[in-house]
């Protein structure tokens, strides 16, 4: 019998941080597997490099902090960070992009703040954003789909040259749909016209299924939605953040597109392109960096949607999901402070409720 005295409860839900993280990884698997198939061996190499770098840097940081490495590594949080960051990288990027991203994500964004649970900003998005502003060319070098085992797919030797030798074949690069429309717009070509360029802008069905140029792991809105629904079913996340992010983007897109179709892309295009689904279901829902209460999560998610739309529409970057999430991450503590639930028996201000009138 244990004689140490501690408060109850003496029964616990079968749940752990590891279980949560592993379930999220499982939910990401279909979308990522599809994109690795779509972009071939170089994607797989980059994927493995990024995750391995994250785990190695996590181990190094934990060792530096003199903490037990086994517990911290077994929770799979570093794997998840690596996975999410890899999902946001152009699939044929060189290996050191993954490694450098891992340094920024794990060492700077996570462990400099105190490790798991202490970071203000989403580590994967910090990694991606630092890479994007530092290496804009590499980070926007998209490739059209080259499915594994198809004629156009690079062989393993080619793939090694792409990932580890820095030989990006010029011929295959393509703009993402968001990027293409933005570039065309800057050249004076209205959205209505650029959207019809089938070669560059896939139709919405192809976009939904994921047969398009894009980051490794985010092209298939359908498969990400599937993973997201799995997380909802498992109650790892709730509907609040994903629905509010997607609805806000859709609403902003639709309203402004109705006002000026030549200038603003339609709502559905916003929803289906770029990192919308990955961001809404897997990035913005990160526990550590999003508000804890449901009303707080709604405010946070509407903010993410609005900022992403603003950045996509008016800023220099074609995609704004990562920036939007990071900006709202910074607001999370203050959102938390103003969205605490009302305490039982007290008013919002914390005063005891008055006894109701019929009983003086």
């Amino acid at each position, binding site marked *: 019998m*244990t004689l140490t005295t501690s408060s*109850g409860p*003496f029964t616990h839900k079968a749940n752990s941080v590891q279980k949560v993280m592993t379930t999220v990884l499982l939910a990401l698997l279909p979308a990522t597997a599809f994109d690795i198939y779509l972009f071939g061996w170089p994607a797989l190499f980059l994927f493995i490099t990024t995750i391995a770098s994250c785990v190695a840097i996590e181990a190094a940081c934990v060792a530096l902090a003199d903490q037990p490495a086994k517990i911290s590594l077994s929770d799979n949080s570093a794997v998840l960070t690596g996975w999410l960051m890899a999902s946001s990288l152009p699939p044929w990027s060189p290996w050191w992009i993954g490694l450098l991203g891992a340094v920024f994500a794990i060492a700077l964004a996570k462990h400099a703040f105190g490790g798991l*649970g202490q970071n203000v900003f989403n580590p994967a998005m910090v990694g991606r954003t630092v890479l994007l502003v530092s290496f804009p060319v590499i980070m926007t070098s998209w490739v059209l789909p080259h499915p594994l085992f198809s004629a156009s797919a690079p062989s393993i030797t080619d793939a090694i040259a792409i990932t580890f030798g820095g030989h990006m074949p010029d011929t295959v690069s393509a703009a993402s749909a968001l990027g293409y429309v933005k570039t065309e717009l800057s050249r004076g070509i209205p959205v209505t016209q650029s959207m019809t360029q089938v070669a560059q802008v896939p139709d919405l069905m192809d976009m939904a299924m994921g047969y398009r140029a894009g980051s490794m792991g985010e092209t298939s809105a359908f498969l990400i939605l599937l993973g997201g629904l799995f997380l909802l079913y498992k109650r790892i996340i709730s509907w609040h953040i994903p629905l509010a992010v997607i609805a806000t983007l859709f609403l902003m897109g639709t309203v402004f597109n109705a006002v000026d179709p030549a200038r603003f892309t339609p709502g559905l295009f916003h929803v289906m392109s770029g990192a919308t689904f990955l961001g809404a279901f897997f990035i913005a829902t990160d*526990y550590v960096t999003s508000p804890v209460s449901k009303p707080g999560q709604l405010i946070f998610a509407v903010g993410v949607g609005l900022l992403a739309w603003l950045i996509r529409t008016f800023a220099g970057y074609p995609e704004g999901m990562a920036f939007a999430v990071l900006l709202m991450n910074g607001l999370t503590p203050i959102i938390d402070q103003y969205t605490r639930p009302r305490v*039982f028996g*007290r008013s919002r201000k914390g005063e005891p409720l008055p006894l109701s009138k019929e009983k003086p």
Partner: protein
Amino acid sequence: MKLFQVRGGIHPDYRKDQTSEKAIVVMPLPAALYIPLQQHIGAPAETLVVEGDLVKKGQMLARSQGAVSAPQHAATSGRIAAITEVPAPHPSGLPQLTIILEPDGKDEWGELPAPIENPFTVDAHAIHNRVAESGIVGMGGAAFPSAIKLTLGTQKKLDTLLLNGAECEPYLTCDDRLMREHAAEIIDGGRIMAHALGVSRIVVGIEDNKPQAIAAMTQAASAFPTIEVVAVPVQYPMGSERHLVQAITGRETPARKLTADLGIVVHNVATARAIYNAVRFGRPLLTRVVTVSGSAVRTPQNVEVRIGTKLSDLIDFCGGFALRPERIINGGPMMGQPLPSLDVPVVKGTSGILALTAEEINDNPTSPCIRCGTCVTICPCGLSPVEMAAFIRKDNLETAAKLGVMDCISCGSCSWVCPSHIPLVHYFNYAKGTLNDQDRERRKNDRVKTLAEAHTIRVEKVAEAKKAALAAKKAAAAVTADSETTPPPAPSVQEEKVNA
């Protein structure tokens, strides 16, 4: 009946089926009974017997002393073997003054107070007195003297007696069995209580995972139009009286107020049965039904046990341990308390004795909080456990208090659900204890300060009076031109000591 939404809550693994389908068994006389003088909230009882006395079953062994207290009775006939300190059924295991009764095996009743023939026509005071002298306390676990709660009608405008049969704690089925087997007695006890309170409406709240109990109670209540049996949703902690009142009436008890301020008094169903026995037969509270459960127990079951039975005897009666228990819990697994050993007695508030295996407890080492926010979503009190715990870790109890830690009912939902297995309730209990201590200390200091200030004022007054007297004398001396003076009186040493 229309029910109302209650915030948050959890659905733990109930495991009630280990005991719920077995009838209550009566445990035979053990070798000795250990009757602590304090089994209730309030002052300990004062002994009326000495070592060597022969007592009869039902005889009062210790009388209540003070405004909040309850007497203790002999649960069988026998000899007082000793009145000594014995470990209390409390996590600390600290010793407590206890009457040890050696049964003579005859189980002979002593003289009991006469049954109250028609309890619905007598004065409410007669019921209050009978309940008080019968040593009845809240049997849901809190063990607050019931007679005091029955006099609330004289202070507040009441309209409803709510009988709490929710039994939301996992494992526990003692109230469930009691309602199935003794529904009529509970209803009669409830009617007596309603009369004592001066209310006509009785509502019985039962979680709807107890369909047989609901059926039995509905049947027993069918003759009385003012009694309503309500099935409430299974949602821990539905048995918390504030939450049960909210579910049934939709009304939220204000912070620092009682449900009685809303006109509703809540009593446990087992208390109602004890009151039935006291009023109808003059029998004091001598036994209670205890759920003995947990995977470590060989024969989990509900046992009607004499108050004072040692846990080791009770566990032996239930076949001993089949597996090694990781912990012995007094009460349910959510809000119960760990016991340091089996060498403690069953008391009036013991609703369950659980012998849990490590697998059932399913605790893991604490890992960092990942801010999942589940604790905020499920907190039935609308608190933010994640934030309060962070402040308490930094020993910033003031901020934790501002966030409402004193409104926490320690239901344990947050700790149960936490994926990082952070012992949140432990943090909150620590904070509540320390804040209470600080509050006591502050009040004591305030009192000392008030007294010290009064003392200073008095001393100054005395000094001024002396000065004035001296001046008057000098003036008088000047007038008479006579220099002879008497020394001024020394300040009263005695008075200073009294006021120090």
